[in-house]
């Protein structure tokens, strides 16, 4: 794990880098960490395309990377700005939670402007937020939203169609 964050920080030489690359390729857990760390890096740099396919894309990219790794480590060093070495030793779950809270450090948090006397507890999800199928509880919002949706309008469909569908799923269980 330490080696990986060093690698990402550009602190490893060519030989060690190759070694880590092989490890990541072989060890599914390390592979996952590698994807996660890059995701974290992306989020911290404000590229928030938190796509679910990210890991696969990294894996695909990794698989297609040329074996010549030597010049790489120097240039990647800007990554160190984000103190990932330290972060990488923290458990991944806590880190993602931390990121969720400091999602947007440049912007004053609504929690603070809104209720300075009772600061809200940090939002710390135990893992990266995964999308689940709607269970019908959101129907009211869904329908209220679709009254204003131009695409629903163009489709010419009743704004309540999605609501009917998701209530059907709940009943159908």
């Amino acid at each position, binding site marked *: 794990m330490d080696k990986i964050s060093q690698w990402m920080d550009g602190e490893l030489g060519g030989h060690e880098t190759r070694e880590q690359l092989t490890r990541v390729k072989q060890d599914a857990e390390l592979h996952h960490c590698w994807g996660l760390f890059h995701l974290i890096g992306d989020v911290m740099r404000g590229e928030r395309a938190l796509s679910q396919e990210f890991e696969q894309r990294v894996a695909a*990219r990794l698989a297609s990377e040329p074996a010549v790794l030597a010049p790489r480590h120097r240039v990647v060093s800007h990554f160190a700005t984000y103190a990932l070495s330290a972060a990488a030793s923290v458990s991944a779950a806590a880190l993602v939670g931390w990121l969720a809270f400091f999602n*947007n450090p440049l912007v004053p948090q609504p929690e603070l402007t*809104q209720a300075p006397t*009772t600061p*809200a507890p940090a939002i710390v999800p135990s893992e990266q937020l995964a999308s689940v199928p709607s269970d019908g509880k959101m129907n009211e919002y869904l329908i209220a939203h679709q009254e*204003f949706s*131009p695409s629903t309008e163009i*489709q010419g469909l*009743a704004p309540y169609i999605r609501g009917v569908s998701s209530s059907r799923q709940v009943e159908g269980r």
Partner: protein
Amino acid sequence: MAQNTRQSFLSGGDGSSVKLAWPIIFLGLVAPAFAAEDAARQDGFDWLTKMANASRRLNYSGTFVYQHSDRIETSRIVHFVNPAGGEFEKLETLDGPAREVIRTNDQVTCYLPDAKTVTIEKRSTRRFPVQLPEQLSGVADNYSVSITGMDRVAGYDCQVIVLEPKDKLRYGHQFCAETRSGLPLRARTLSEKNQLLESFAFTELKLGGNFSRDQVRSRYAAKSRDWKVDHSALVLSDVPADTGWTLTRQPAGFRKLTELKRSISGRTVMVSHIVYSDGLAAVSVFIEPLPKTRPAQSLSHQGAVNIYVRPVADHMVTVVGETPAATVMQIANSLEFRGGRGK
């Protein structure tokens, strides 16, 4: 674009500057559009307008399939416009638990036979008939519109209209509109990887026909007399309002469409509702006091719609939109109370 960024990062380039530079170069290359492209785009817009109008003004009845994730659901729809005034619609599920929705102008009655319940609600449906040219200029900024060919749906020839998103903040759309009337026979929403997220398509359709009240009457009309009737949403109201909430980072291409306070069925307090749109896709932000149990952050989806719930201090924020989850979350996460008038 993201591929470029990612690649440059892995291969050691400076990801952040590449990210900034690429869209500019890219736009520069694309901007000098050919006259033929302009004409094609205008045709695309004409078709969008035609579709929106057709579905509101035509009489039609048919069976359609709603497909999302790995589910396929079939429903029957009847739509009639009374020449003397009034729009009537009946929607009936054909598989799974029976559901029947009858709409008479803005009153929506939903029959739930298994629960022996009728809910009657007031809905301001179709509030945004496609407003030209303002709305379409938003579409032009954010999507490449093209007419790609003909297809056949439910036995009718139809024109394929494709809207390709210009960035990753929105999904792609593909419509097939009946050649003569413009009625959309098929609508597909596609992810950034061109995967089908959601699709509506007629499998059988009758266009035209005379208005008949019987056709839009509930089959449960008599049976439901002793069912439970839920009127609670009949008095739903909304008023334009300054909610005091704003976005610090509004996603590119999205503009605020409306801002109001409204009642939501099952809530005792008025809920703030702000709608952002890029001309085609919309994202709604709902803000209300926290329920007794503080909700956890959650992300869910229904077809192409993503829903993100997030507590913000003593408020619950629910963001709903037919956009990628990242767009919905960006809006939720950059919501800020700028104080002042009521919340």
